[in-house]
C-alpha cells in the first residue's frame, strides 16, 4: 500500500499490449533514465558489487600463481596486468562507487530531504563512472586492437613514470588506465559536489550541522576532501597523456623531466584517497555501533572534530610513501611527524566507539558482528601504519608484503567489513526485506577466518624480505609455506563472498519483511517506509536533536534535553 502513486487522469497509457515485453522495457528504461538518488545509489552499489566479484577473481588468480614458487599458472605479462587491474578496480570501481552509492541513497533520507541537490548531475556522474569502468575493462579486448600490442594496463595501479612513458609501455594499455580514470574521476567530482551542496543546502528544518547523523558528516568531509584529492590525479593523468600523445616531457627524464614529479603528484592524490575510502566506513560504524549497543554515540562533537582533523592532516602526509626515493633526512623526518600526527584523531575515533559500546547492551546481529571485526582489525591496521611511519623501518618494509598486508588490513579488514555491515543494516530499508541472519553468520565467520589466515600471515612473509608486484619468487628464501597459507585463506574469503552474494539475491525474494524500523534505530531514514516512496517523506520532517526517532520513542527523556 505504501508505493502506490496517485492516479492522475489522462496521463496513464492504458493501451493493451504484450505485457511482459513492455513491462521489461519500461522497467529497464526506468533504471536508465532515473534521477532518483535511491535508484542511483542502488545502481552504484550493484555496479560495485559486480566489480568486487571481478577484482576478487583477479585476486584469486594472483594467489593461485603465488601459492608455490616457480608456478606457471600465469605468465609474467598476464600476472602484471592482473595485479594492476585488481588494484585499480578495487579502488576506483569498487571502493569509490560503493561508498558514494551508500551516500547517494542515505544522505537525503538522513537529512529529511526529497533528493540530492542536483539530481541530473547525480545521474550524469554515475554514468560517467560506469563508462570509465567499462572503458578500463575494454582494454582486455580492445588493447590488442588495430595499433599493435597492448592489453589491460600492466604498470601497477600507481603507474610510476617513466615506466608509463611510450618508450617503456608501447601500445595502448597505459592509455586505457589514464583515460578511464580521468573519465570516472569527473564522475566522482560531480557526486562530491552534489553531496556537499545537498548537505549544506537541503537539510530539513531544525537539523543544524551539529545535529546531522555522523554518516552524513563523514560524507560531507569526504566529499570536500575528494575535491582536492581526485583532481591532482586527474591533472597528473592529463600530463601523462600529453607525454604519451603530444610528445610532452612532464615525466621524460631524458629531457630534464622528473620521475619524482609523478611520484609526488600520484601520492598527493594517493594518500588522501585512502582517507576518502576509509572515512565513509567510519561513518557507517558511527551509525551501526550506537544502535546495536543501544547507546548514543559517545563524544559526537569530538567525532566531528576528529574527522575534519583527519581530512586536513591527511593532505600533508603523502611522502610517507616515498621514504625510499632519496628525500633528505629533514624531509623524511617531517613526514614521519605528520603521519604519526594523523594517527591521533584516528585513535580518538576508535576510543569513542569503544566508549559507545561500554555500558551498553550489545546485540550481535550481522551488522554488529562485522562492526566488531572492523574495530579489532582497524586497530591492528592503524598500528601497522604507525610501524610504517617509522621511516627507517619503512626502508625495510616499503614495497614488501608487509605493506600489502597493512593496506589490505585497512581496505578489507576495515572498509569491506563495514561495507558488509552497512549492507546488512540498510538492505531492509532499501528492499523491505531482511537479509538471512543464518547466512549472514556463515558469511561473517568464514570471511573472518579467511581474512586472518591470509592477511596475518602476509605480514610475516614481508618481514622475511618478500617484495610486492612479483609474479613468482625464489624457492630458497623461506617464503614457500607462508605463500601457500595466504592463498588458502584467499579461497576461503572467496567462498564467504559467494555466500553473501547468494544471500543478497535470495533474501530479495524470500527474506522476512522488515517494516520501516527493524533495528529500533534513531535516524530519519527509519521513519519512512521500506523501501521509501519516491518522494521519501510524506511531510518534511522537523527535528530537535541528533536522534529524532529516539525523541519520538522516549518523549519523557528526549535527547534535546542533554545536547549542548
Amino acid at each position, binding site marked *: 500500500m505504501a508505493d502506490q502513486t496517485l492516479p492522475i487522469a489522462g496521463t496513464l497509457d492504458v493501451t493493451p499490449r504484450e505485457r511482459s515485453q513492455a513491462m521489461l522495457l519500461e522497467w529497464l528504461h526506468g533504471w536508465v533514465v532515473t534521477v532518483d538518488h535511491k535508484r542511483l545509489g542502488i545502481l552504484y552499489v550493484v555496479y560495485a558489487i559486480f566489480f568486487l566479484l571481478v577484482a576478487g577473481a583477479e585476486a584469486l588468480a594472483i594467489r593461485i600463481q603465488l601459492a608455490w614458487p616457480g608456478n606457471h599458472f600465469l605468465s609474467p605479462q598476464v600476472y602484471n596486468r592482473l595485479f594492476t587491474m585488481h588494484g585499480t578496480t578495487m579502488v576506483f570501481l569498487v571502493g569509490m562507487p560503493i561508498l558514494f552509492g551508500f551516500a547517494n541513497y542515505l544522505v537525503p533520507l538522513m537529512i529529511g530531504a526529497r533528493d540530492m*541537490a542536483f539530481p541530473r548531475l547525480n545521474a550524469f556522474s554515475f554514468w560517467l563512472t560506469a563508462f570509465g569502468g567499462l572503458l578500463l575493462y575494454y582494454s582486455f579486448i580492445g588493447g590488442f586492437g588495430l595499433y599493435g600490442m597492448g592489453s589491460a594496463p600492466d604498470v601497477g595501479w600507481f603507474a610510476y613514470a617513466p615506466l608509463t612513458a611510450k618508450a617503456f609501455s608501447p601500445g595502448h594499455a597505459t592509455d586505457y588506465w589514464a583515460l578511464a580514470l580521468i573519465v570516472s574521476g569527473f564522475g566522482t567530482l560531480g557526486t562530491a559536489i552534489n553531496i556537499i551542496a545537498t548537505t549544506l543546502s537541503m537539510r530539513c528544518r531544525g537539523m543544524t550541522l551539529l545535529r546531522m547523523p555522523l554518516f552524513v558528516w563523514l560524507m560531507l568531509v569526504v566529499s570536500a576532501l575528494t575535491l582536492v584529492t581526485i583532481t591532482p590525479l586527474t591533472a597528473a593523468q592529463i600530463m601523462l597523456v600529453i607525454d604519451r600523445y603530444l610528445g610532452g616531457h612532464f615525466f621524460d627524464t631524458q629531457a630534464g623531466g622528473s620521475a619524482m614529479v609523478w611520484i609526488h603528484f600520484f601520492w598527493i592524490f594517493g594518500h588522501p584517497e585512502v582517507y576518502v575510502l576509509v572515512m565513509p566506513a567510519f561513518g557507517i560504524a558511527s551509525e551501526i555501533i550506537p544502535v546495536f549497543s543501544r547507546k548514543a554515540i559517545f563524544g559526537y562533537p569530538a567525532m566531528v572534530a576528529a574527522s575534519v582533523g583527519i581530512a586536513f592532516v591527511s593532505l600533508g602526509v603523502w611522502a610517507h610513501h616515498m621514504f625510499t626515493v632519496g628525500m633528505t633526512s629533514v624531509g623524511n623526518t617531517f613526514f614521519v611527524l605528520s603521519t604519526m600526527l594523523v594517527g591521533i584523531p584516528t585513535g580518538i575515533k576508535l576510543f569513542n566507539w569503544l566508549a559507545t559500546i561500554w555500558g551498553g547492551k550489545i546485540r550481535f546481529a550481522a551488522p554488529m558482528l562485522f562492526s566488531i571485526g572492523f574495530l579489532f582489525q582497524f586497530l591492528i591496521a592503524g598500528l601497522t601504519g604507525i610501524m610504517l611511519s617509522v621511516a627507517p623501518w619503512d626502508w625495510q618494509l616499503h614495497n614488501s608484503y608487509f605493506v600489502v598486508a597493512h593496506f589490505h588490513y585497512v581496505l578489507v579488514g576495515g572498509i569491506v567489513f563495514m561495507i558488509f555491515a552497512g549492507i546488512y543494516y540498510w538492505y531492509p530499508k532499501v528492499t523491505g526485506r531482511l537479509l538471512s541472519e543464518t547466512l549472514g553468520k556463515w558469511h561473517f565467520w568464514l570471511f573472518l577466518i579467511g581474512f586472518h589466515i591470509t592477511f596475518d600471515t602476509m605480514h610475516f612473509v614481508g618481514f622475511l624480505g618478500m617484495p610486492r608486484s612479483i609474479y613468482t619468487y625464489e624457492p630458497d628464501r623461506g617464503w614457500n609455506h607462508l605463500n601457500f597459507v595466504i592463498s588458502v585463506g584467499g579461497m576461503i574469503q572467496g567462498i564467504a563472498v559467494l555466500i553473501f552474494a547468494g544471500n543478497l539475491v535470495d533474501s530479495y525474494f524470500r527474506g522476512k519483511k522488515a517494516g520501516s524500523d527493524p533495528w529500533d534505530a534513531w535516524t530519519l531514514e527509519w521513519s519512512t517506509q521500506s523501501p521509501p516512496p519516491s518522494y521519501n517523506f510524506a*511531510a518534511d520532517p522537523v527535528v530537535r536533536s541528533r536522534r529524532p526517532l529516539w*525523541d519520538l520513542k522516549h518523549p519523557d527523556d528526549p535527547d534535546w534535553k542533554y545536547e549542548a
Partner: protein
Amino acid sequence: MSAIPVSPVAEAWHLPSRGRVGMLSLITGETAIFTIFVVAYVFYIGKSLSGPTPQQVLDIPIFNTICLLSSSVTIWLAERQIERGKMRAFAAWWALTIALGVVFIVGTGLEWHKLIYVDGLTIRTNLFGTTFYSLVGLHATHVVVGLIGLSLILLFTLTGHVREEHAERIQVFALYWHFVDAVWVVVFTVVYIVGR
C-alpha cells in the same frame, strides 16, 4: 512505526543556496587541478635542456590581460543590471563580456601561432614548451567553456527566456567566470613574470 518527526521549532531556517555551494565546490576542485599544473610549471623553470627560453620568445600579453580582467568588471555590471530587472542593460554588458573573452582567446591564438611558426616552440620542443602550452592551454580551455556558457545565456536572454527571477543563477555562473579570471592572474604572474 513510521510517524514522521515533527517537533515545534521557533527559529527561522536559512540554508545557503545549493547553486552557490555547488559552484564553489567545483571551483575548489578546479583550483586543485590548476595548482598541480602551476607547481609543475614552477618546478621546471630553467630546467629545459635545449630550445627557446621564456625570455627569448615570450611577450607579456598586456592587452589580452586587460581585456580578460575587464570582462570580470563587465560581468559584475551585468549582474547588477539583472538584479534590478534591467534586461536590456544586462544583455549589453553580458555581450561585452563575451566580446572581451573572445578577444582574449583570439589573442592567445595569435600568440601561439607566433610561438609555433616563428619561434619553433611546440609542446614537444622542451620542458618550457610542455609546461607552457599545458598550463596556458588548460586555462584557455576553461575560458572557451565559459564563453560557450556565456553565449548560451545571451541567446536565452535574447529569446526572452532569462528574466529577473534568474538573477541568482546568473550570479552562480558569474562565479565561474570570475574564477577563470582569477586563475589568469596566477598563470600570468607565474608564466610571464616569475618564469621569465
